[in-house]
């Protein structure tokens, strides 16, 4: 059974956010216009077996984040089906759900709850999470006193300790320092060995090649290429260069 399966998935967003206002209704009625929608993903099909690490590359607005949102179950697709098996821990943004006025420990508890941890599990894992994040006595300070690297470390540490089957990482790793990045890499490799799935978005083809065995290249909502990470990375870099030429 695949960990993640997309079958002819399309996702569109409403272009004109005002169309629900009274004004929007009126003008639509008068113009009898059709609804304008922005196509973020177009007819995407792929399967990811458990234990695979997959990178997603593409330029801004290619649909990478939309793809991750669909996997995380944040929104339903317009067409096609998205099937996901297992617990998903999405790290889509640095410290989503963190509150600057709460201390690290309080944010830890809140975030663990948001990710679906129980009270006892959170208490059990508390030491390990703090230890891995390596923020020491800062754990009792409000989060606003943290550097962005520190809050990222805390967020990452929580996400990997909630024992997800699928970890989704969107760029956030870039914030940590070298030592922590190395620690993350180790943890991710350990993850891989446990047969868990990783979905990784990055602009850096280097990181994708280092971490992933397979890569997807998205361009303007279409799946342009799906193959071995090194091949896709090379093609993507080549393609990007071609576009830049006059």
């Amino acid at each position, binding site marked *: 059974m695949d960990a993640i399966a997309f079958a002819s998935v399309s996702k569109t967003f409403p272009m004109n956010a005002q169309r629900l206002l009274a004004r929007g209704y009126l003008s639509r009625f008068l113009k009898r216009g059709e609804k304008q929608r922005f196509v973020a993903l177009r007819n995407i099909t792929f399967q990811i077996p458990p234990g695979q690490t997959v990178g997603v590359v593409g330029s801004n607005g290619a649909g990478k984040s939309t793809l991750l949102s669909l996997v995380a179950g944040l929104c339903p697709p317009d067409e096609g089906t998205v099937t996901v098996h297992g617990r998903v821990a999405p790290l889509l943004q640095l410290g989503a759900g963190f509150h600057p006025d709460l201390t690290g420990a309080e944010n830890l508890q*809140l975030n663990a709850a*948001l990710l679906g941890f129980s009270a006892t599990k959170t208490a059990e894992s508390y030491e390990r999470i703090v230890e891995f994040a390596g923020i020491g006595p800062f754990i009792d300070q409000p989060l606003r006193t943290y550097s962005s690297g520190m809050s990222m470390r805390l967020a990452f540490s929580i996400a990997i300790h909630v024992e997800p089957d699928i970890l989704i990482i969107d760029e956030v790793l870039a914030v940590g320092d070298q030592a922590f990045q190395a620690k993350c890499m180790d943890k991710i490799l350990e993850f891989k060995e446990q047969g868990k799935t990783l979905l990784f978005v990055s602009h850096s083809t280097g990181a994708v090649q280092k971490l992933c065995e397979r890569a997807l290249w998205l361009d303007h909502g279409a799946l342009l290429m799906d193959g071995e990470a090194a091949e896709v990375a090379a093609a993507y870099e080549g393609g990007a260069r071609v576009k830049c030429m006059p």
Partner: protein
Amino acid sequence: MWKGDYFFLLRSLILKDFRTRYRNMSLGILWSLVNPLVMMGVMTFVFTKIYPLSASQNYPVFVLCGLVPFNFFSLAWANGTTSIIDNAQLIKRLPVPRETLPISSVLGNAVHLAIQVALLLVAALVLGAGINRYWLWLPLLWACELIFVLGCALLCSALDVYVRDMRYVVESACLVLFWLVPIFYDISRVRPQFADIYQFNPIAALVLALRNIILEGKAPRAILLSKLFFVSFFMLGLGWVVFRRLNRRFYDYL
């Protein structure tokens, strides 16, 4: 989708509300006592010394019976309505069950309600209204209000995502309701044909039932209670259905 500890999540969200709201205040949660006490004092002064309005012997308790349920209703409704928009970041990034946001917002406010209810009961005892066996009805009445407000919050928080004017609609509605709920005046001043309509407003019904119990020491009429139950549960059902339906498109509109 989200398989987790629902109650731990609700508890954590309520705690977050509390901690962020009161961390930097000296009086902290005592503020929820200050507001009704001040209002009680001012209204008692105005409506006994300037415009003698009520036949009630015990005007401070009389007005508190109106203020306590109304305060909770207006605050919890307003906070609940904006809870989805206020947590847009969270909804766009984490697959949490979204109904927990308006629910935790209302439950967080219910803690203030509990404090104010205690104030009301203490005031009733101190000012000589006396305890009676009908007080056993009180938990049920507060439960009804909670259910009603949960319904309102679910409904309006979902609508607020699509129609951002919702929060102003709610604010204005609260202002209007302050006058249309018999908070500082007696329902006996309202003509009978209007009074029947009044009772379909659960907040008004609650105020009337509270006065029956606390001030008059008699059981509220069955018809009044049944209207209160019916409207409260209807509201919760409506809010739940609408929320479930609109929930699917939250991501697109946030």
